[in-house]
């Protein structure tokens, strides 16, 4: 990227300062949360001296650890599946006109719009009947549990992923894809080497969103869960009646630490493996897309 598009002068300073403030906003409560995980008082919010007792509690609390593992498994599984389905759906909607498109479009928004508790109740009724039918028709004795939680999470995550991916795809030039096809690339190769690299930021954003939503969901999970399949948020929600203790802060801090380590590792890996990448792609894209689409867009923008 050339240096001239970088913001200049006061704008640059303002943007940088703003970003730091946003991070401060994001991390202020996290800082509080971390501090109180070392507090020797059952109340989150009253400092009672330094202790590591809560971390020790976590190590001994098998129910809590189980909840963390269930959460992580559900989050990863539902993210992977919903990213694939959601991205395909977004591609279909943005790149093709097909029959049933409008219904699909509408159907994709509903999981975002539906109130949590309504979706929870409907999944509860659905699973009760669905498993009943599986039992009576196929003789499968299925229990609610990890599977039903994951199914519900995928059902709302598909939509969130597709919205983010569509925001990326919308108005993105098709010229490169057409060029690739003209040069006898197969559909798959076109997708793999042309389309996909371009939508990666959208897909990654969608995946992050899905992961976060899955890790945070309470009501839907509670109603879709079965014996022994409690996720962390559901477990924590149960605690609020007797008071959430810094044990949950300690758990959060551990998860935070684990994710920071994972991110660091993956970045290091990317750095390492990225050196042999295809630097030409971006240049190619810029060369092709700039004159064809964006000039007209600029003209429109300026004449408006």
């Amino acid at each position, binding site marked *: 990227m050339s240096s001239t598009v970088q913001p200049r002068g006061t704008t640059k300073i303002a943007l940088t300062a703003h970003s730091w403030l946003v991070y401060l906003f994001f991390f202020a*409560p996290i800082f509080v949360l971390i501090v109180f995980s070392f507090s020797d008082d059952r109340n*989150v919010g009253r400092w009672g001296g330094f202790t590591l007792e809560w971390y020790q509690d976590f190590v001994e609390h098998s129910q809590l650890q189980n909840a963390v593992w269930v959460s992580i498994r559900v989050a990863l599984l539902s993210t992977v599946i919903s990213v694939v389905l959601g991205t*395909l759906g977004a591609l279909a909607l943005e790149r093709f006109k*097909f029959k049933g498109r409008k219904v699909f479009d509408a159907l994709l928004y509903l999981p975002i719009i539906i109130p949590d508790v309504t979706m929870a109740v409907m999944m509860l009724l*659905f699973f009760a009947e669905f498993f009943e039918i599986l039992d009576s028709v196929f003789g499968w004795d299925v229990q609610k549990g990890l599977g039903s939680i994951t199914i519900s999470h995928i059902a709302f995550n598909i939509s969130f992923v597709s919205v*983010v991916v569509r925001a990326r795809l919308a108005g993105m030039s098709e010229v490169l894809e057409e060029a690739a096809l003209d040069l006898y690339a197969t559909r798959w190769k076109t997708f793999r080497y042309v389309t996909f690299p371009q939508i990666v930021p959208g897909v990654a954003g969608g995946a992050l969103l899905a992961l976060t939503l899955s890790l945070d969901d309470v009501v839907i999970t509670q109603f879709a869960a079965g014996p022994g399949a409690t996720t962390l948020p559901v477990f924590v929600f149960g605690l609020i009646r007797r008071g959430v203790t810094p044990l949950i802060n300690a758990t*959060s801090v551990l998860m935070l630490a684990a994710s920071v380590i994972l991110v660091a590792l993956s970045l290091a890996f990317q750095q390492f493996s990225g050196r042999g990448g295809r630097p030409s792609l971006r240049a190619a894209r810029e060369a092709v897309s700039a004159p064809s689409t964006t000039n007209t867009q600029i003209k429109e923008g300026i004449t408006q």
Partner: protein
Amino acid sequence: MTMVADRPEGLEEAAVATPEFEKAAERAASRRGFLLSLPAYAYLVLFFAVPLVIVMIYSFATRNRFGGTDLSGWNLDAYRKLGEPIVRDILFRSLWLAILTTLICLVVAYPFAYFIATRTPLVRNLMLVFVMIPFWTNFLVRNYAWRVLLGNDGLFTNISEALGLGERELLFTTSAVVIGLVYGFLPFMVLPLYASIERIDLSLVEASRDLYASGFQTFRRVLLPLSMPGVIAGSILVFVPSLGAYVTPEILGGAKTTLLGSYIVTQFLTARNWPVGASLSFVLMAVMLVATLVYFRTGGRNL
């Protein structure tokens, strides 16, 4: 905007007058599109649409004496209840709060997303992940942390005291609710904005500046129109869940005013009045769906 509305339907209609073989290609494209959408489509029909129809049926049923739902004696009573003034008040209050939250998120997130998008790829990824990391902690504990920050001996009280504004406690006020909602949904704005700004060829910004456009003009005429899909997607991802939020208003706002989210939860989980909860959800969803689709379409024309 008027210019946009007056513009003919454009390319889509031009396609009508094409030779036969292009029509065949169109049919092939249609088939491909359908196949691509099929996995998500089928999944959502089975695991979303079907359950949704079940709840829809509930919305026409009657609450029985024990708070169960009698699946007989179908009626529209639950929908009639939504006309009551108390529901209207709740609706307007929630709308106002959700719009405010969305606007604040947009104003805060846009320059932030732009800043991220103009970094080098490595820094970009790092910044993005650090936006999300706070949200991998527990949702409830985050809200409790905000309670500490906004409470009677918290950071904000101390700051306002130090600034000579007196001891102003934010906890249990509407401001606290807005802060909590903005915090909770800001990433939902940042992600799609980033995804769509990053796509923009930034040499356009350069060109605009070279043509003596001011910074604001460049933003208004070049950057903003090109990032509109992100603005729209982000607004929806923030607006819709803030309308349904109920935990944050309860913890940070002291539950002193009822918002739409808590009203719906109350119907399901306190009054055990499922028909009313379901009917309200359906009316809300219908309105939101129409608004969303219209919003997307008008937004889409600006591209």
